[in-house]
């Protein structure tokens, strides 16, 4: 049973068709890489999954529940969307950390706010808060940031910011974790570090969707690869298929640069 | 007295709100910090006879007419010069104190009657009796008249040399010049139009007549004259 099924998503901005006929599914524990040139709609697709954009057509199904259906307004109620978002975690291309909070607080904030809503919050306040702190610290140490807990986002490097964003997304234990170009604009050593973190997640069978420009990395870490161009899925398959033996002309052209190395 | 007359309006409030600006000897705060002055004492006396509580409110002279119309004050009792123009827009009592418009200049300035001021800069308060005096004088009419929004700024103009002469109330001129002031070197050089002070009420107010009646009584029993003596003022005829 797939964790996620995306059926026939379409999205237009005004007259510009940005996504068209997007369908794919994702099994639990799978890592899916989405590649494609700039403007092909990769970011928009992630945003649709996270309810930051509303598709014009199509369905999104998580664990066999239709959480979004463009044809069924009942699935689009504001009040429910909030909870449905928690199926997905998203690490933004530019991180979007909260600048006024420390690294630790960036990770705990959403957990604390959700805990406030628990019926047993007032009695168990202290225990719950400690638990949240512990969980956040564990996650931050997993991404190698144990020594930066009390730093503010502007005081740490881009790579470190990215890892905070990863920990922040993981804290809510999403079914599917989405990354939007996790390594763009990092230097090679930092890229290496971040990729190690993600590889680690993959090894622990985190279900992930990774939009990336790092072909080597996509090839190594992904269980499946989707190549998008101009809003459509041109090709999908295992890394071996897509990288080693692309069927479509457009894919071959896109990959020229990489295969030559 | 009809139901919506001004007097019944004031009576209903139980107090007469008296608008004034701080200037000696009419309404001012003395060294000991008590609020006093000729108009202060007179108004208190009249109010007692009217059966009203006096409430003194310091206003700025620019907006006195607006204050009256907006009923934020009930009368202007502050050495207000009676002019025909004012009588048109306000209800003014009969004269109670005599006043004059005087010409002030820097000590040592040449002055031989108003013809010396032809072509010179003369200041007075905009819309004041001083302005009327200037307009009525054949020589001053040919002076370079500059209106001021505040009567008291006129002396600053003299001192700073930005004006040659000022036309002001005699009473005000006396307080503002002389020892202990910033204007020791400014003197009164001429007395022009004699004029009278009155108390102004809203147009059509019936309080005015009642105050006139009380003024007559106070003149008759001599208490008005006694009060005028105390502050060095002269009663109107």
């Amino acid at each position: 049973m797939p964790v996620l099924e995306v059926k026939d998503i379409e999205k237009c901005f005004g007259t510009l068709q940005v996504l068209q006929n997007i369908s794919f599914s994702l099994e639990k524990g799978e890592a899916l890489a989405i590649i494609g040139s700039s403007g092909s709609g990769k970011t928009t697709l992630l945003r649709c999954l996270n309810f930051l954009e509303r598709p014009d057509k199509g369905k999104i199904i998580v664990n066999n529940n239709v959480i979004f259906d463009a044809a069924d307004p009942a699935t689009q109620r504001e009040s429910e969307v909030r909870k449905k978002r928690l199926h997905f975690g998203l690490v933004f291309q530019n991180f979007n950390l909260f600048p006024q909070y420390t690294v630790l607080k960036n990770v705990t904030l959403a957990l604390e706010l959700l805990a406030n809503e628990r019926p047993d919050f007032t009695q168990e306040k202290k225990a719950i808060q400690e638990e949240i702190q512990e969980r956040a610290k564990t996650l931050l140490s997993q991404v190698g940031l144990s020594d930066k807990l009390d730093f503010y986002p502007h005081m740490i490097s881009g790579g470190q910011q990215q890892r905070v964003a990863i920990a922040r997304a993981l804290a809510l234990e999403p079914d599917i974790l989405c990354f939007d170009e996790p390594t763009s604009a990092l230097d090679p050593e930092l890229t290496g570090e971040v990729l190690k973190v993600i590889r680690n997640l993959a090894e622990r069978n985190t279900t992930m969707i990774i939009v990336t420009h790092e072909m080597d990395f996509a090839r190594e870490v992904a269980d499946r690869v989707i190549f998008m161009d101009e809003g459509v899925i041109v090709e999908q398959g295992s890394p071996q298929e897509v990288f080693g033996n692309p069927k479509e002309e457009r894919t071959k052209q896109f990959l020229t640069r990489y295969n030559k190395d | 007295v009809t139901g919506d007359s001004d007097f019944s309006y004031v009576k209903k409030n139980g107090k007469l709100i008296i608008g004034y600006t701080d200037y000696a000897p009419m309404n001012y705060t003395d060294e000991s910090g008590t609020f006093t002055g000729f108009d202060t004492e007179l108004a208190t006396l009249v109010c007692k006879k009217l059966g009203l509580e006096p409430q003194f409110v310091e206003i700025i002279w620019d907006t006195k007419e607006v204050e009256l119309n907006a009923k934020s004050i009930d009368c202007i009792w502050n050495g207000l010069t009676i002019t025909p123009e004012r009588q048109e827009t306000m209800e003014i009592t009969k004269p109670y104190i005599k006043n004059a418009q005087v010409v002030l200049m820097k000590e040592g300035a040449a002055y031989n009657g108003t013809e010396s001021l032809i072509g010179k800069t003369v200041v007075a308060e905009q819309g004041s009796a001083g302005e009327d005096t200037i307009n009525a004088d054949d020589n001053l009419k040919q002076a370079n008249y500059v209106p001021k929004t505040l009567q008291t700024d006129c002396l600053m103009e003299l001192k700073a040399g930005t004006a040659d002469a000022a036309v002001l109330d005699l009473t005000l001129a006396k307080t503002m010049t002389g020892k202990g002031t910033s204007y020791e070197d400014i003197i009164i050089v001429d007395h022009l139009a004699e004029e009278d002070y009155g108390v102004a009420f809203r147009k059509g107010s019936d309080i005015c007549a009642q105050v006139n009646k009380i003024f007559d009584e106070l003149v008759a029993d001599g208490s008005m004259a006694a009060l005028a003596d105390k502050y060095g003022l002269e009663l109107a005829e």
Partner: protein
Amino acid sequence: MNEIPVIISRLSESFLLNCKLFAITLLFSLPLGLVITFGSMSRFYPLRWLVRTFVWIIRGTPLMLQLIVIYFGPGLMNMAFSWPGGTSGRFVAANVAFIINYACYFSEIFRGGIESIPQGQYEAGQVLGMTKKQIFFKVILLQVIKRIVPPVGNEVITLVKDTSLARIISNKEIIMMAGEYSNKGLIWPLFATGIYFLVFVGVLTILLDWLEKRLDYFRV
């Protein structure tokens, strides 16, 4: 002249009125400004239009006129409402006029501040399952505050000097008090008022700098 201490103490006393007016105006115009901001950003067009027009009128006319309209208006138009008699009424009216005027100015600054926060901050909050209210108060607000401290500071300093306009409706603030001495032929108290304003503005500048520094611990 042993009058000088008396004059100084009376000037200082009247400056208290400036200070009170300043404090009350700030206290109420800042939250009212926020309410106006929400109105001017409302998705409901007629409300947005109404609020923006109101703000435009207030920002387009001299505060002096607004003081006159607010204090004398009810009486001149024979309205049932009237301000409490005596000095208290004048002071309340001055506060109302100042609060409305400054709330409109602040609302425009707030709007600018809110509109300058990158969309990504809202989205990051949404993705983490926060409610709109939580996003505004936990994520956006402090960032907005950091951005608006400098322009709000400028307005606050203007307010200090504007308080002396309250004399238009005969609130005996420091410049009107100095005017009493001008009436008695004494000029220096008027110039001395400048020192009061300068000191107050100086203190405020230091406070505002301190506030800016306090918010320097993060970057937006």
